[in-house]
């Protein structure tokens, strides 16, 4: 029982962090399909830098890498008017290729054992603090009001004297920060970087955001649910369940299957920020 709870929390941590990254971006009006790529880049960079310069600089470098990718997304969508989805997909593709190249090129093939990292508990604490902080920020502060306004109707926010471009810049820096933490956590959790180690978590986080109706609390709960399904994979893989020997592929596919079913069932009552993707 305790085992399941701990596993769920550890599985949900990167999802919550990535979903909060998506929340900042999409609430400000920027569609962010590139969470996956940012996480992957952060994981790779933090692994490489952790080995050479220690865990603290490793995390910071991972965050920096994700923030830089976020800023590229801002430039592409807000300055050059590139479609948000295309920009996000390109970043994912670039990230998949670049991390593979960097890791084979720069890591030492003879080295073995875990990469030195910050304790996973640090990230899990972040995953608890981040949603609480965001709820307070959006509900109680001027900046939070501006964030939601610029994602709801940028044109009218501009009439009220706001600068949606600038608000989105800040929002995307926050997106980079959270993606960076999520990516670095994956390395801290497993102790290694492996090719394409995010394994679609960026997309699952996005699905949790949609399921949560772009609201912090509900989104975090959706992440926990996905985390629980992923933990089942580890708990029941290869064990008999009521006489059936379910193949391990079933347990592996469970979170993804749940994503598809949940999205199909919930897309009808979308509560998308109205200004998503608008300038």
């Amino acid at each position, binding site marked *: 029982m305790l085992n399941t709870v701990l596993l769920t929390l550890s599985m949900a941590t990167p999802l919550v962090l990535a979903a909060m990254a998506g929340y900042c971006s999409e609430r400000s009006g920027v569609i962010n399909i590139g969470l996956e790529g940012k996480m992957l880049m952060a994981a790779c960079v933090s692994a490489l830098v952790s080995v050479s310069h220690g865990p603290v600089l490793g995390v910071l470098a991972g965050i920096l890498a994700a923030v830089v990718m976020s800023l590229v997304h801002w430039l592409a969508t807000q300055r050059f008017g590139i479609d948000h989805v295309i920009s996000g997909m390109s970043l994912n593709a670039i990230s998949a290729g670049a991390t593979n190249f960097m890791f084979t090129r720069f890591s030492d093939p003879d080295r073995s054992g875990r990469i030195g990292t910050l304790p996973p508990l640090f990230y899990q604490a972040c995953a608890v603090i981040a949603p609480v902080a965001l709820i307070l920020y959006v509900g*109680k*502060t001027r900046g939070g*009001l*501006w964030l939601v306004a610029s994602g*709801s109707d940028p044109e*009218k*926010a501009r*009439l009220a*004297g706001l600068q949606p471009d600038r608000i989105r810049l800040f929002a995307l820096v926050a997106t980079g920060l959270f993606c960076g933490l999520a990516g670095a956590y994956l390395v801290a959790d497993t102790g290694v970087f492996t090719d394409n180690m995010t394994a679609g978590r960026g997309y699952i986080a996005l699905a949790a955001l949609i399921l949560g109706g772009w609201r912090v609390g509900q989104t975090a709960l959706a992440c926990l649910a996905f985390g629980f399904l992923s933990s089942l994979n580890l708990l029941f893989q290869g064990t008999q369940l009521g006489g059936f020997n379910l193949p391990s592929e079933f347990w592996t596919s469970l979170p993804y299957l749940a994503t598809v079913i949940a999205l199909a069932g919930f897309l009808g009552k979308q509560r998308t920020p109205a200004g998503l993707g608008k300038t």
Partner: protein
Amino acid sequence: MRGISKQFGRVQALDNVGLSVTSGSIHGVVGENGAGKSTLMKVLYGAYQADSGEVKVNGKAVNIRSSKEAIALGIGMVSQHYGIVPELSMLDNLILGAEPAMVLDKSAIRERAGKIAASIGLNYGNDIWDRDASAISASEAQRLEILKLLWREARIMILDEPTAMLSPKDGEALFGSLRALTKEGATVLLVTHRLPEIMEYCDRVTVLRGGKWIADVPVSETNPEQLSELIVGRTVSVSVRPEPIPAAAPALEVRNLSVARDRGTDAVQNASFALAPGELVGIAGVDGSGQADLFRALLGVTPTREGEVLWQGQPITSRSTSARIELGWRILPEDRLSEAIVSDWSLIDNSTLGLHRLPEFADGGKIRNQERAAFAQKAAEKFGTKHGGLDAAIGGLSGGNQQRFVAARMTESGPKFFMAFQPSRGLDIAATEDLYKAMQERCREGASGLVVSFDLDELMSHCHRVLVMFSGKVIVPPVDADRDLLGRLMVGGEA
């Protein structure tokens, strides 16, 4: 404001215009579309920079470079399209852009918001302030906009066509609260094209025409005829309402038509009415009463949930949109940019948009280029569309010129039945008259027409008959219904 000039590209939007407003008064600014009213107001509000001229507020010369500076000087503006952000609550909208501090003290904000609402006679509790602003009506949005000005402590309020989206009753209530505010020393600048509002509520009026100052007169010393002469620059022949058409076998008959909305109530509820051949029928009603849904369902763009549509006695409810267009049905849709034109396409390409399958313009799968170009030429000339070549993208034209072109596409392509949504939008008085004349001409040739407008007077002076739509229902008043009755029906009143 003195000697204000402003140029956009080659267009002189304002040419040495002056405006002087006494504090504590309601001052009207009138003129046709393109006369420079809105531009002048935007210069005052800091949204545009004047090329030359000076502005004095309370006797002090000021240089307003942004809306922020205007607000700091106590100048506020409600634009034609409200600045209400959906998804935020009413309270969040009230304070957006003028928050008292970094961290919001909601209880203090509520207290002040309540006081402000009370000052114009509104009793707003927490239940109202917490409502989602995307669910509020046009009149509530209008009131919220005025509350926003008060929150910002604006002493000079600019209202651009404030009653365009309001029912007559809500309009009266609005002017009631404006009067109350001027008694307390606020100054109101009212931009409008509705002369009755000027005559009834304003103290002085300034007339602009073609970017030039024409006149500035106290309202008590003028009359509507004189004002409309000043506005247009020549005597306008006031159009006379055509006589009702005698009853005949209907050309179009709609029986118990219902159109579903995404969820909940129907957008059009059980509508039944008929149009005689040669009849031009207006549909009055405030915006969002289901007019657009009715049009889309009639053209077969959206499915009907129940009911029947008959054309010359034949049921056509299940026919496709293109089949209906082949029957001679034409539409001037609500949203010009998303439904009537493709901005990047040339005027020629746009001229047969939707009509491209008709034998006049297509020979099997091949476009008849000459006929199409000739039609585009004709459509452009009909209402005097100003354009930079028929090959140029239509998106480069002003809204008024696009409207002239798509209106001509409807009237000049041999319609048997046409539906026009707010046909006068973006047009000046003369062009509006020309357009209605063309529609009446088509009706004399035997076509039938439906016209939706939010301006009851416009419909009453041009249509044979006026129907009313209110929250999805089509009401068929008696043929001789007067303005009072129609106005009451528009807001759900009893006949």
